[in-house]
């Protein structure tokens, strides 16, 4: 069951492919040309998916994912997960959306920053351990809220598996 944690923490997760469809108003506007309708639909799609502004976090990191484009973020997080030894002890900063996973057997909670997908296909997540005493859900952001985190990269063992996370993490939401 612990493997299910992979969903949030160390592997790619499926986020669904395909653009959001827009309502077809062609029937109501019979005098419009195809180009007019396409332009209108494109405008609607653009306004439906505004650019996300991630909260600023005053944290200087050796690996700053917030300044990389989505391809490079994907590549770097993949490298962190598959070759964690190269990143141990380094400070990492990342932006994404907040998510939480509860292990059904133990009830233990894991918090993660889901990083925006690179090609409208996959997303990646980084587990983090927030510095200080915080209780869920009172102190934490809501699931899906945009956050920026910064912390020290480490690996830890649970059962037979090794997992990655950012410890002593700072969080801005």
């Amino acid at each position: 069951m612990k493997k299910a944690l992979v969903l949030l923490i160390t592997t790619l997760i499926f986020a669904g492919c395909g653009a959001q469809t827009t309502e077809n108003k062609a029937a109501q506007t019979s005098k419009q040309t195809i180009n007019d309708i396409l332009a209108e639909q494109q405008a609607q799609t653009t306004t439906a998916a505004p650019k996300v502004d991630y909260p600023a976090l005053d944290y200087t990191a050796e690996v700053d994912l917030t300044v990389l484009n989505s391809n490079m973020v994907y590549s770097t997080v993949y490298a962190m997960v598959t070759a964690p030894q190269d990143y141990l002890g380094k400070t990492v900063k990342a932006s994404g959306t907040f998510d939480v996973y509860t292990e059904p057997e133990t009830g233990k909670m894991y918090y993660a920053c889901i990083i925006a997908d690179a090609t409208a296909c996959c997303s990646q997540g980084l587990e983090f351990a927030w510095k200080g005493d915080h209780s869920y859900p009172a102190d934490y952001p809501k699931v899906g809220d945009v956050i920026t985190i910064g912390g020290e990269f480490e690996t830890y063992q649970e059962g037979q598996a090794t997992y990655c996370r950012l410890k002593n993490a700072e969080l801005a939401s």
Partner: protein
Amino acid sequence: MELFETLAYYFQFPAVRYALIVGVLVALCSSLLGVTLVLKRFSFIGDGLSHVAFGAMAVATLTGGILTQFKPVLDSTNNMIIIMPITIVAAVLLLRTGKNAKVKGDAAIAMISVGALALGYLLMNLSVFPKSSNISGDVCSTLFGSLSILTLTQTEVNICIAVSVVVIAVFILFYNKIFSVTFDEDFARATDSKAGAYNLLIAIIIAVIIVISMNLVGSLLISALIIFPALSAMRVLKSFKAVTICSACLSVFCATLGILVSILFSTPVGSTIVAVDIAAFGVFCLIGAVKGGSKA
């Protein structure tokens, strides 16, 4: 200027350097055999074999998944050990299909192509994998090569370099034989008892190229990497040697440009490379038309 600074910054990441090395090598290897395949009317064999490689990858993943449950140490099993032989066998079978075969060449390719694709996806969705596994993401990446080239490890790069050196060496050493088998197989068979062996050699090289190309452009787009440079070169040049050299140079240029563009502008790597190949084909068509047109 800002673009160059960004590019210079990104080149500090090993993944970007690996991507460029592998991209150039794969593009070079695939273009060399592309000319032969186009002239032998086997343009679509790349597509069929890439689907076989996808199916083989699913088998390898499934096998790895099952074995890992018994022995975690087998987690590091290299999929290449399974993918490569299956693809080579399929390539040999497809290229050896004779005129008297019950299933003709194009039908055989189509049958193997869709069959392997369907079985591959079916196997990938078997319950041996945890429900949280990113099957769709993996399939998407494998089929379209969205970003897999930016996730290469040092070992994978070394394997690609070794395989590429072997492929290029074999092509240069057997250039004359490949040339004769390409243009007139019947004549080659009549004059050289080893013509069948050279055909087998071509089949093996094609399979090897297909497997290493999967990381660059994905299964569905490999054909573009093989065909477009060759067809572009054929628009303006006529001799086999000139077309092969031009095709190789063009393929390397397009792959390099495609990778750089995708890194800078966050576009999917595989489809960006293919888009550059298509643009280059258009340019070469124009040049060919201006020159009076050369018929491939």
